[in-house]
């Protein structure tokens, strides 16, 4: 089956090469939505191999990219009016930077795809342009050694490629990673959607725990108190997985677990102020639960940022995890104790 983003074929010395569209279709946007919300994220791939844009010749540049469809789309939509080759390598459907870190975007894989595509019979030059963020997985000198093509690192963002191709140089600002509001906002849906399964399990558990009472099990209490706990958890998700990423640079503290605990704590105060049915002990339990939960979710967001070091995350987790475990345990204790007081 021909992929829907292929809008023709270019006849070359090594056979027909699929030509890809530079405008994203409704289907592509739907796929982006699916990937960003986690529904199709784990199997959103492009077949590795050689593609082209426009009418490239032997002297046209070769751009190397990962086979995550979101990555591939981000690249091709910036290439309108440019004649070039795209070499998609097999990163198992993972983006450039993460694949570099995991070792699948490697010199060996680039060289393998160069040889498989018979690139040396297609182009007259011996140069590949790699995304700068693949440098954590690709030793450029090894690419040359393995396949004879020189690997050059292009800009971080595909959007800057036209300028790079024209001037042959990457300006300093093309080489520095950014994490602006829009980039952070794009990550929020996934942070939330990855939690659905956990929330479902938690919901059943909340229902069960909330019903435990002096008369063994109260179905009415299970329903009303269970619902309160679910709403509290949604508040924690809002604070830790949405507000923390969005307002990241403006929230005090550098450690993410503290940022999350702060926003969780503030949100929990609003939450308990809005619940009329909860007793003081229950309110205390809710404050602890929302704060601890939000703290954990914020801490987990470190994995999605482009500036947190692994050493730093491990360090803050040694403080954050005990806080989260203790708040959750106390919350559970108070919540269970309430019907018996």
């Amino acid at each position, binding site marked *: 089956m021909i992929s829907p983003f292929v809008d023709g074929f270019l006849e070359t010395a090594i056979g027909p090469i699929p030509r890809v569209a530079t405008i994203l279709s409704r289907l592509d946007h739907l796929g982006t939505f699916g990937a960003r919300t986690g529904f199709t994220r784990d199997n959103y791939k492009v077949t590795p191999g050689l593609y082209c844009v426009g009418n490239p010749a032997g002297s046209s540049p070769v751009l190397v990219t990962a086979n995550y469809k979101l990555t591939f789309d981000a690249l091709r939509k910036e290439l309108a009016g440019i004649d070039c080759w795209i070499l998609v390598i097999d990163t198992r459907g993972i983006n450039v*930077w*993460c694949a*570099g*870190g*995991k*070792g699948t975007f490697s010199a060996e894989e680039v060289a393998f795809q160069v040889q498989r595509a018979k690139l040396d019979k297609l182009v007259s030059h011996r140069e590949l342009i790699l995304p*700068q*963020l693949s*440098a*954590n*997985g*690709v*030793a*450029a*000198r090894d690419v040359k050694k393995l396949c004879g093509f020189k690997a050059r*690192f292009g800009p*971080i963002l595909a959007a800057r490629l036209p300028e790079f191709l024209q001037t042959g140089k990457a300006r*300093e600002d093309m*080489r*520095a*990673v*950014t*994490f602006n509001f829009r980039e952070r906002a794009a990550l929020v849906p996934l942070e939330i959607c990855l939690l659905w399964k956990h929330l479902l399990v938690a919901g059943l558990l909340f229902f069960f725990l909330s019903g435990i009472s002096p008369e063994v099990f109260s179905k009415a209490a299970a329903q009303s108190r269970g619902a309160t706990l679910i709403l509290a958890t949604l508040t924690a998700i809002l604070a830790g997985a949405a507000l923390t990423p969005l307002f*990241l*640079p403006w929230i005090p503290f*550098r*450690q993410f677990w503290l940022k999350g605990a702060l926003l969780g704590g503030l949100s929990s105060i609003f939450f308990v102020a809005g619940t009329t049915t909860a007793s003081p002990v229950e309110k205390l339990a809710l404050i602890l639960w929302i704060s601890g939960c939000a703290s*954990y979710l914020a*801490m*987990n*967001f*470190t*994995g*999605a*940022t*482009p*500036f*947190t*070091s*692994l*050493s*730093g*995350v*491990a*360090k*803050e*987790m040694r403080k*954050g*995890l005990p806080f989260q475990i203790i708040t959750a345990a106390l919350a559970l204790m108070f919540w269970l104790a309430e019907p018996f007081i």
Partner: protein
Amino acid sequence: MQDFRYLDDTAILRLTAEKCVGCGNCALVCPHRIFRVREQKAEILDPNGCMECGACAINCPVGAIYVNPDDGCGCAAYIINSWIARMKTGCGC
């Protein structure tokens, strides 16, 4: 990336100046622009800006750069799993 600062004195990044040949690969690939090459030697301008991505070390032709080699994306869930795995194999060192 001056808007975003993470924990100071934490990232593991070492440059052995004697080995450095001044090729500039580290300065080229670093996504946080923390290197500078002067008089044929690289120097680290902003060690606290390092996120341990490892691009400099892997592209250093003479092995002059050492970065925390633990792999992983740095998300909490992943680190917890690696801690559990380490406990299971009985190696806490």
